[in-house]
């Protein structure tokens, strides 16, 4: 089956809403699990990996949450399809590099996504729009409890769930949220925030996770420690920290508007100007400018324009999405031309930012 046809369309995806979604784009809780009697994927030989896949895949497919799911071995997915899944944040870049012996099971609503034989035998994730960490945890907890009846997990009373990498040992949990923080970046407050978040034992990463840039001012915040604390303690701490980051971002936006009005309007106006008029634009520049436009929408500088317009462009202008819509034989230069055409077309009916927008505040 064509993964692109299975996926929720970008337009639909941007209409999913959740609490605080003007800053928190999505919430995710991931659990790492392994089978007791098999080597980890990074060490196992191909026949053993295939055996593990053949054990786990039917068990995952049999769960009621996975009714009508998309289930496929990674070697049956093309490079472009895998890249699309990375751009939608459904699989890791590491998993996209896998082929024989690895698999993917994704439900229709895209609320559950299971990677088989990534770094661990099982990486199951629950995804929610906006800030919904508790909901995501309780969903994946139930999912895991149902799955443990069908599979023999590697578990020790002392060390908890035994994972390939000791950094995931114990609960095997990674709780994370994707945040859009243009205010903190413009106000140059982002670095101290990152530092203090790090001090709390939490990691801050870029748009596509580990080792990636914060393109479009999008940051992922997640726990790092997994052993010695319960899942709920970890979820609660992250929730608390995220609420504080949200508050700092809102404050930064407010202060910018009041004290650096010209700077903010200049950034947003230029972003709009380039996006609406460029005839060639890279993916990176597009994302960074769309981020400023998104800020403009939040600050009500584009009356009548919905945030979903910007969010949809954010998805469909990414390289793999662009190639999927046109052709995968395009050169980078050709893609930049097509991307700018697409953005100009979408912004045709968006008028330039109205700097006299009444500050309704609440």
């Amino acid at each position: 089956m064509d993964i692109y046809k299975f996926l929720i369309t970008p337009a639909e995806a941007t209409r999913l809403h959740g609490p605080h979604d003007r800053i928190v784009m999505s919430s995710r809780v991931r659990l790492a699990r392994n089978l007791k009697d098999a080597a980890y994927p990074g060490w196992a030989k191909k026949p053993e990996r295939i055996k593990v896949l053949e054990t786990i895949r039917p068990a995952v497919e049999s769960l009621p949450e996975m009714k009508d799911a998309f289930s496929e071995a990674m070697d049956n997915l093309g490079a472009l399809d895998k890249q699309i899944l990375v751009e939608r944040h459904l699989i890791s870049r590491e998993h996209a590099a896998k082929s024989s012996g690895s698999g993917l099971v994704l439900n229709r609503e895209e609320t559950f996504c299971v990677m088989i034989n990534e770094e661990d035998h099982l990486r199951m994730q629950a995804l929610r729009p906006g800030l919904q960490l508790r909901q995501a945890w309780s969903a994946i907890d139930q999912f895991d409890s149902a799955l443990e009846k069908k599979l023999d997990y590697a578990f020790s009373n002392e060390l908890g769930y035994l994972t390939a990498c000791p950094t995931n040992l114990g609960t095997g949990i990674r709780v994370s949220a994707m945040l859009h923080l243009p205010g903190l970046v413009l106000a140059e407050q982002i670095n101290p925030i990152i530092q203090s978040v790090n001090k709390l034992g939490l990691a801050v990463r870029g748009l596509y996770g580990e080792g990636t840039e914060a393109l479009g001012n999008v940051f992922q915040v997640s726990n790092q420690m997994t052993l010695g604390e319960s899942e709920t303690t970890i979820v609660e701490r992250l929730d608390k920290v995220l609420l504080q980051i949200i508050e700092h971002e809102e404050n930064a936006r407010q202060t910018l508007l009041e004290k650096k009005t010209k700077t903010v309007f200049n950034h947003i106006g230029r972003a709009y100007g380039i996006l609406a008029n460029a005839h060639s634009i890279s993916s990176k520049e597009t994302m960074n400018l769309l981020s400023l436009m998104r800020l403009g929408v939040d600050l009500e500088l584009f009356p009548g324009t919905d945030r979903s317009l910007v969010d949809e462009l954010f998805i469909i202008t990414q390289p793999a999405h662009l190639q999927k819509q046109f052709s995968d034989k395009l050169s980078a230069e050709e893609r930049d031309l097509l991307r700018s055409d697409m953005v100009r077309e979408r912004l045709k009916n968006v008028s330039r930012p109205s700097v006299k927008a009444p500050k309704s505040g609440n």
Partner: protein
Amino acid sequence: MQCSVCKEKPATVFLTHIENDKMHKVNLCEDCAKTKGVDNPTTFSLADADLLLGLGAAQEITQTTGGVDLKCPRCGFSQADFKKSGRLGCPECYQVFAEGLAGLLKTMHKGTRHTGKSPEALRQSRDNAEQLKSLNKKLAKAIESEDFEQAAKLRDELKALVSPAAEPAKK
């Protein structure tokens, strides 16, 4: 440091056991370690530590290996492989490389003992064991205080708990 078994030769093998924040240590010399079967970590199981120390399930084992490159008997993964990739070969590796990992885990995590979710089958058998222990204690107390009515009641409860019907189906 002296061997805690023969009290003669210097200890070169150190076992550390932590339970409820209390640490128990056993230090053994080369020979005593050999006779107790703890010289070779690949054949030494946690159950042996229980016998040796007369304690509950061993929580942490630290022992010196004299610079030999350890290998997991289950999957063939070696300490050198771990240094290269930072990942382990199979779940069994956690026992094999326990010594080297102990310090690492301490710096990496909030604690070294799992306090989160457990698979339900395990949880049930653990709860059962705890209940058994507490009932036995109560029973001993009842007998001591000659409260035989209470003792009979507790005995019945115990019987129900250990009878096969009440045992959780765990293979």
